[in-house]
């Protein structure tokens, strides 16, 4: 009988604490990957100077990465499966359109305002499902975006099927790129920090064992509401940004793409790592751009990939890569 054995790399063991960094290699081992990601994300727009089409794709990638972060946080740290990421996007987008077009707020005001007020509205609307365990949250989030589309179409409010046109676009392409890249990095590393803070531990406790959290005198519903707020905050920012990027807010903001691509990114990238969500978006969204001509067939492709990963490689790429990075494996005789 052979058995696979996994052993932490020596450098991993030494760098697990802060005190034992002895060489450049070890420092590089620690800060290399995040540095690669941050620097990479920042110089990417410059690198792609000669491919204007793909430059725009960076923005979309980052937007999806933000929505994926919001999904990953809710699903794998709080235990709420949100099937309607598009709902946050739509709310954020429409709100910023209202602020910008109807109320004539400048871009730098309408995006933050839409983000915050959108998060508040989303949280309030999702409140009824929060005191419950099980599939209710998934059900309600599944229904909201579909419903929002129908209501807007039926009542012909907020521009009806045409949407609200004429949002101010961002001053120039570089502001457009760096705004979303920086916000994405802030969300990514902010969330990674947050989930290990005391409050983050409490929220993770809600997922593991809500009974014990309640027995500790903490209201589970409040914690969940806070988590939904954080998550919808990210989603609404993404929506507000997109609306300004396209200078347009329409019902396609509630479209399935915004719900399913982030889920697929998280599953492929590796749930519960947050980095995986970003990685997944960087893989999936460019593919999606390549398949632009296939229309809704793209969704079929994501769904097939997604199901395949859930069934055959549920840990995702990120967890796999981290294991390879931190540990080596060998076969031993048992």
């Amino acid at each position, binding site marked *: 009988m052979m058995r696979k054995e996994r052993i932490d790399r020596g450098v991993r063991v030494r760098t697990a604490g802060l005190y034992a960094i002895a060489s450049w290699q070890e420092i590089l081992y620690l800060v290399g990957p995040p540095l690669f990601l941050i620097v990479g994300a920042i110089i990417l727009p410059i690198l792609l100077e000669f491919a204007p089409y793909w430059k725009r794709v960076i923005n979309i990638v980052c937007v999806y990465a933000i929505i994926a972060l919001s999904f990953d946080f809710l699903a794998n740290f709080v235990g709420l499966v949100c099937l309607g990421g598009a709902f946050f996007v739509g709310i954020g987008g429409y709100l910023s359109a209202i602020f910008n077009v109807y109320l004539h707020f400048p871009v730098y005001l309408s995006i933050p305002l839409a983000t915050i007020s959108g998060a508040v509205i989303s949280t309030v609307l999702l409140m009824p499902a929060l005191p419950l365990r099980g599939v209710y949250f998934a059900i309600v989030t599944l229904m909201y975006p579909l419903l929002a589309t129908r209501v807007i179409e039926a009542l012909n409010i907020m521009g009806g099927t045409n949407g609200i046109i004429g949002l101010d676009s961002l001053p120039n392409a570089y502001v457009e790129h760096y705004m979303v890249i920086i916000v994405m990095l802030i969300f990514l590393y902010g969330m990674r920090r947050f989930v290990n*803070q*005391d*409050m983050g*531990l*409490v929220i*993770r*406790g809600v997922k*593991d*064992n809500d*009974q*014990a*959290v*309640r*027995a*500790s*005198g*903490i*209201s*589970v519903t409040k914690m969940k509401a806070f988590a939904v707020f954080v998550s919808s905050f990210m989603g609404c920012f993404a929506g507000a940004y997109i609306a300004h990027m396209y200078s347009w807010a329409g019902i396609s903001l509630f479209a399935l793409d915004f719900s399913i691509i982030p889920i697929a990114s998280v599953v492929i990238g590796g749930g519960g790592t947050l980095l995986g969500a970003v990685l997944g978006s960087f893989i999936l969204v460019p593919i999606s751009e390549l398949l632009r001509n296939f229309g809704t067939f793209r969704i079929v492709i994501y769904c097939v990939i997604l199901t395949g990963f859930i069934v055959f490689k549920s840990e995702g790429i990120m967890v796999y890569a981290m294991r390879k990075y931190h540990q080596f494996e060998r076969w031993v005789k048992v």
Partner: protein
Amino acid sequence: MSDDTILSVQGISKTFGGLKALMDVSFDIRRGEVYGIIGPNGSGKTTLINCITGFIKPGGGKVIFKGKDITRWAPHKIAHIGISRTFQIMRPYYSLPAYKNLIIPLWSPRAKTVGGWRGGGRHGDRDTVAVDILEEIGFERDSRVPYKLASTLPTGYQKRLELARCMAMRPEIIFCDEVFSGLSMSEIAGMLPLIEKMKEEGITLIMVEHRLRELFRVADRVMALNFGEKIAEGLSSVVIENKKVKEAYLGKEEV
């Protein structure tokens, strides 16, 4: 109801579907005592705790804590006013080190107000307090035990961790749901002084137990439940001699 009554349970009833899990159970708990609740399997002990601590809404009856009616309160509110509980089926946060398990109760509003542990905004503070509490509850500070993953702890330590989670709340009453079950004799022997110590600190303990002999060594008074009904109450030596209690455990003697 005398002056030193801290918790008064009056006529609690609960039915699940057609099954009567609790029928009109009443008792008073005095401040600072160790009160045992015994009874065979399925006699409604855990349901009783769940009803009092708010995890199940009782069908009828009242729970009065220090003169305040707390029936049907949400569990976190009941915990907040100082009634803590352990769970029979322990589920610590396995993926966290033992001391990190205490972050959650230490983060709670009660720990901030009553316990005075504000955490101070810096990340380390709660960790120190957590290790202090674990030491109090019998984790050797200098060993690696408090820093081990909760999933790797032996059952005895997991039970202690459950108690530590309660202690972190600085509670007035702790409901212990079978803390002795699944432990070896020596582990129980290690737990008994702990119970004495908590009692000395003025915490009222209500212990639901299967292990009668160990319980009788610490309990001041005992109540026996059978099929959801209170069948006896009083000093442990009296209760154990009660005919109904014997019948409940050993079955009716054939006449």
